[in-house]
């Protein structure tokens, strides 16, 4: 077996015991690793309707077949669990250096079961595994936790939750290497619910490589392609992901004040260009990454911290009506330290501001906190972010995200979310494929698992008309499936600006063995997507959950270059289900399950709708 380490670590937190199992290579080929393997285990081991915070929920931390291999961007790992925010499958991905260090311990993945009766952290140094007391770490921020571990132990990489995860915030993240985040789906709270504070790793195992010469050659060629690519080799390294601020705003799809507007004259004050000019100290790169989109920035008081991504700048910036990079950098730092998802945190404050603007939240509701909910109030944005993380005062309501907040005021339509997870930084009313991607996403509101911005705005791999519906369903399907491949083999999705499907086949086959063709690798992605869908169906999700907030399908964009457009989801959704080989209710047909080798899960699909076939609209 190559690429994989061949070993699964199973940790029972209730009994404070662990065991190891063989990782089946055939299983690896079929589900690739990381995300695919994690979803498969969740499906097989966690019963339907399990409470995400119960000991019966499991949390899987998994590397892919290429994680840690001498292949560009191989620093990724995945967290897979049932999301407490959405109730769907949670599939959160992170970079940095933790993933490769974990794999070097000789394990492909960890399955956490049960719940510890007091705080613990997991220590792994090659075969040495210990479930250690973490009472002294509980309550500490991610930075403090990392520093405390570094004082106790030498050369370990730290993944940890902050106070937000401990307090079971439904929008809490899992952090690694201080400022990298497996951000979405409230995965931090699942760790918190299990009293699992951190996982610290150090390893000396080498990843077995199928063909070392070929791997060197393939790696060199892909690094060169990425370095010479104008986006991956120049645009992203120069400005980071924040370069999107001006592009998305100039296109009139930059959500302002909780998606009430889609363009602002002030965008350039919070752009990637401004961040580079006024705040950037240096770039940072994840493990074996030639792109180096990471930012390191300096605050006014001289503190040097990890800088914000595009989505973060938008969430705390335009979405909150705030145009001040210093405040956004600080909000980003608070989220990293306390372990909050920056997209959901900023977007939840934005939703609260609109609830206040429209009179749902009253002055007396927030008077005791001494903070306003006025658009653009920097002190309020920072204050609420911290109170959200610690569940202090009104922050307790914010800690569970915008959907539950808005619903508690009788106005769920003011939560700009899909399946209760906050939407990211693109107004889909004038980007039809991207809006479809939002609506059908297996993990709720998400931009990255099917990044249709790439063809519809940026022109990669080809330029599509963003207002048109033609061909968008099929295109979106391919993006969703290809991203499932990239997440599962353990690489970064930003490679797609320079690389395509045959490149991923080259890299996988060089490291793992001549296993996949273009067709079979993409089909593995499709299999993973369908398995996630089946997980959600088993949890009770249906086509009625594949929807966008009312505002985005009914109210035309009121300003800017994309004025007048709405999202046409009802026209796109049937076509999407059809190209997927799903019935009109969005349930995979038996034929589709058979084609993908998922027939063992046929009991979860509705037999009646099967007989109608996939094309019966």
């Amino acid at each position, binding site marked *: 077996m190559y690429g994989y380490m061949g070993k699964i670590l199973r940790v029972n937190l209730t009994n404070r015991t662990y065991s190891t199992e063989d990782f089946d290579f055939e299983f690896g080929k079929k589900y690739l690793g990381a995300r695919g393997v994690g979803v498969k285990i969740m499906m097989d081991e966690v019963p339907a309707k399990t409470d995400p915070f119960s000991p019966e929920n499991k949390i899987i931390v998994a590397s892919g077949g290429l994680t840690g291999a001498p292949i560009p961007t191989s620093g990724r790992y995945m967290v897979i669990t049932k999301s407490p925010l959405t109730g769907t499958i949670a599939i959160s991905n992170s970079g940095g250096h933790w993933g490769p260090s974990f794999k070097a311990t000789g394990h492909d993945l960890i399955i956490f079961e049960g719940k510890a009766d007091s705080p613990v952290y997991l220590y792994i140094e090659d075969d040495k595994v210990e479930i250690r007391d973490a009472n002294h770490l509980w309550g500490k921020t991610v930075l403090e936790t990392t520093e405390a571990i570094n004082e106790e132990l030498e050369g370990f990489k730290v993944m940890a939750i902050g106070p937000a995860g401990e307090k079971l915030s439904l929008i809490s993240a899992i952090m690694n290497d201080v400022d990298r985040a497996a951000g979405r789906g409230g995965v931090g709270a699942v760790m918190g619910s299990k009293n699992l504070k951190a996982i610290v790793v150090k390893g000396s195992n080498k990843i077995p490589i199928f063909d070392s010469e070929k791997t060197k050659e393939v790696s060199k060629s892909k690094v060169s392609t990425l370095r010479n690519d104008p986006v991956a080799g120049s645009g*992203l390294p120069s400005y980071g992901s924040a370069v999107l601020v001006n592009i998305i705003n*100039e*296109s009139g799809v930059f959500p302002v004040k909780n998606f009430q507007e889609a363009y602002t004259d002030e965008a350039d004050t919070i752009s990637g260009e401004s961040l580079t000019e006024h705040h950037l100290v240096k770039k940072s790169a994840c493990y074996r990454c030639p792109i180096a989109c990471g930012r390191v920035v300096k605050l006014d008081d001289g503190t040097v911290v990890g800088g914000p991504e595009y989505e973060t700048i938008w969430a705390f910036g335009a979405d909150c009506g705030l145009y001040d990079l210093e405040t956004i950098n600080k909000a980003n730092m608070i989220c990293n330290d306390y372990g909050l998802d920056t997209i959901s945190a900023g977007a939840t404050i934005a939703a609260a501001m609109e609830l206040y603007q429209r009179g749902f939240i009253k002055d007396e509701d927030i008077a005791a906190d001494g903070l306003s909910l006025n658009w653009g109030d920097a002190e309020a944005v920072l204050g609420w972010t911290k109170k959200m993380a610690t569940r202090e005062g009104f922050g307790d309501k914010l800690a569970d995200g915008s959907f539950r907040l808005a619903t508690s005021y009788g106005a769920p339509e003011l939560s700009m979310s899909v399946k209760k997870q906050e939407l990211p930084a693109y107004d889909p009313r004038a980007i039809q494929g991207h809006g479809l991607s939002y609506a059908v996403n297996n993990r709720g509101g998400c931009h990255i698992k099917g990044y249709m911005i790439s063809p519809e705005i940026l022109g990669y791999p080809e330029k599509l008309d963003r207002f048109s519906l033609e061909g968008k369903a099929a295109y979106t399907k391919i993006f969703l499936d290809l991203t499932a491949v990239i997440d599962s083999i353990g690489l970064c999705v930003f490679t797609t600006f320079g690389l395509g499907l045959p490149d991923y086949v080259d890299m996988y086959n060089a490291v793992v063995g001549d296993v996949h063709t273009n067709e079979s690798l993409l089909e593995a992605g499709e299999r993973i997507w369908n398995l996630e869908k089946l997980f959600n169906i088993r949890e009770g999700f249906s086509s009625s959950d594949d929807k966008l907030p009312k505002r985005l399908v009914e109210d035309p964009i009121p300003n800017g270059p994309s004025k007048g457009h709405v999202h046409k989801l009802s026209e796109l959704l049937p076509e999407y289900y059809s190209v997927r080989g799903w019935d009109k209710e969005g349930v995979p047909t038996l034929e589709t399950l058979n084609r993908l080798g998922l027939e063992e899960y046929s009991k979860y699909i509705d037999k009646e709708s099967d007989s109608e076939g996939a094309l019966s609209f």
Partner: protein
Amino acid sequence: MIKIEVRLFATFRENRERKYFFELPKETNILDILNKLNIDREDASLILLNGVDGDVDRKLKDGDVLSLFPPVGGG
């Protein structure tokens, strides 16, 4: 004559202004503007005319806003 606004982003700002306001003859097209600013056609990865993709031979009209980007991406 027509009045137009040109906005430059990312590396296009190196040795150039962020914004230009031009008063130009009626038949001016996007390529003329690229030439005027010494920007290679191949380098202008994203050309937005009033927020929507514009072909280089498109003629400009009074009040148009032209936004020019080199190859950039993110997410």
